[in-house]
């Protein structure tokens, strides 16, 4: 494999990184603002996949299905926050972790109940399935879409956080929830909104994944580990860090698989373990 095609492969695998990023973003937001480690995050991601599958099969409209899947997943997240998570804020972190773990169990089984134990898959819609040629390099529209979506989300998040009033309030709650409350910021509402958004983002990621791989039970169990690892390597508070790490993970895991096939899954865990051992606050973390 010559260098250019190698690089092109890497570039194309940005889409994998982008998907990891979309998965991680929601987790970072929820952890940063609500201070809860959401064990159910990957389960929501997969819920997005299943919902996308159902709606696309019925409507054949990609965009509409995507939006519906996102919103429903987000709504589910908000419901979980209101009914369950709210009650565990006052408890120790362990109990919060375990509560979200319980939610993950329920979500996984509910998926099996509704959609069965098999896998679901949809084919990339016609318009997006076409490829484009850039002087010898062929890029698939869909892949490009994902990469662009990831980038836009990153920019949007940064802009939102730093340049909007709600973003400012959210950052305030992130930094100091007690003080924010004292200043009159409706922290409760922000918690619910962040949960909604974070979960909706997970749903988005899952929805975008369905045309690419077959989604089935067990995927959530696998993804949650990757999601945690990305967020922890990046550093539990860092959004930019999460983007960078997620992209790198996506790109390099694909490349490494080509070079050393035996190591694919292990390499991520090993890198994570090494980084955590020497820089426990992650590469970009603040806490």
């Amino acid at each position, binding site marked *: 494999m010559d260098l250019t095609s190698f690089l092109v492969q890497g570039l194309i695998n940005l889409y994998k990184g982008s998907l990891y990023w979309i998965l991680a973003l929601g987790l970072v937001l929820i952890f940063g603002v609500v201070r809860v480690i959401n064990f159910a995050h990957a389960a929501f991601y997969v819920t997005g996949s299943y919902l996308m599958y159902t709606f696309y099969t019925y409507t054949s409209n990609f965009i509409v299905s995507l939006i519906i899947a996102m919103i429903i997943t987000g709504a589910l997240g908000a419901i979980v926050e209101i009914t369950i998570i709210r009650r565990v804020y006052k408890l120790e972190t362990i109990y919060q972790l375990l509560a979200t773990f319980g939610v993950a*169990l329920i979500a996984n089984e509910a998926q099996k109940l509704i959609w069965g134990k098999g896998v679901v898959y949809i084919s990339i819609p016609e318009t997006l399935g076409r490829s484009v040629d850039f002087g010898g390099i062929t890029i698939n529209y869909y892949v490009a879409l994902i990469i662009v979506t990831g980038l836009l989300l990153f920019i949007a998040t940064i802009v939102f956080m730093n340049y909007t009033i709600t973003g400012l309030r959210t950052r305030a709650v992130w930094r100091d929830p007690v003080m924010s409350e004292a200043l009159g910021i409706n922290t409760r509402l922000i918690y619910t909104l962040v949960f909604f958004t974070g979960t909706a983002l997970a749903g988005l990621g899952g929805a975008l994944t369905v045309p690419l791989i077959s989604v089935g039970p067990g995927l959530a169990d696998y993804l949650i*580990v990757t999601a945690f690892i990305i967020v922890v390597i990046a550093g539990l508070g860092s959004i930019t860090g999460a983007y960078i790490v997620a992209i790198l993970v996506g790109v390099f895991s694909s490349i490494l698989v080509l070079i050393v096939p035996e190591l694919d*899954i*292990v390499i991520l865990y090993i890198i994570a*373990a090494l980084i955590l051992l020497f820089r426990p606050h992650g590469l970009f973390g603040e806490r």
Partner: protein
Amino acid sequence: MYMLRRLRALIDGNIIALLLLIGLLGLISFTGHRFYMYIATLIMIFGIFAMGYNILFGYAGLLSFGHGLFFGVGAYSVALFTLNVYRDPLVGVLFSIPIALLTSIIVGILTLKHGRVYFAILTLALSMIFWSALVKLRWLTGGSDGLVGIPKRGVHVDLSAPTVFYYFTLVFFAAIMLGLYVLNKSRYGLLLRALGTNEDRLPFLGYSTFTLRMIALTISGVVSALAGALYAVFYSVVTPDVAYWTFGAEPLVMSLIGGSSYFLGPLVGAIIFVSLTTTVARFAEYWMFLLGAALIAMILFFRGGLLGFLESLVGRFKLGVYLRWRF
């Protein structure tokens, strides 16, 4: 006189309940009823796993998602040892102890210097690394198919008869449970309980929290590995699933169900969990759903687990004085 007082201090509701349970388990073998013996064996194995897990979780306050690693180390070391080195299940099980000890120490050095959240995630990562290794190193571990043919009949013992194997397991179970009981009452038990209660004060009393955590992890790891070793001989087969993090979450769930603040909590949880999975699960296919709901309900309302709930019913006097060692 003093000896009698020491002895009296050693006895409480826990040891009585434990001895009764061991007696009951012994009786089951006399019925010769295959299914009961099957369930009882699983209860003993997972009881050991959960009790071992809780030494780290309930006592020392460290949440681990990686105990599948220790269980797997125990299981695979028995398998590899009996299949390649020396064909005897008893020696194999005993062999898993030093291996588990070594693993625990290594894991401890790598993970115990960090805060509790990072510890949880690190153990998760380590267990998944182990799982990946088990799957990838086909030539050694049999890959995803695992290793088969772990012998029950060996040079020194013949465990092929179900009753014999049952007693074999029962002996280990009784020994480990009694050992944990003595630990609970001993000075180390006190230190570990202190660790879980108020870790930050301990250095000011002159203790190294790292050393105490290491002690907890080592005991927890070795006991969990023994559970894995017994599991391997019981089924004669080991597969990588036991190292996947979702399997390692089971002793956590068991400890919570029974009540992680109670000495017998994890064992009670194991009894419930195993009984339900082997009986009800056949009929209610999606029982995990109920488990998730039960878990949430418990966290919201019954943080003390089943024993905690019973205690609140019966009142502190009776149950509390005897079974509770912390809130």
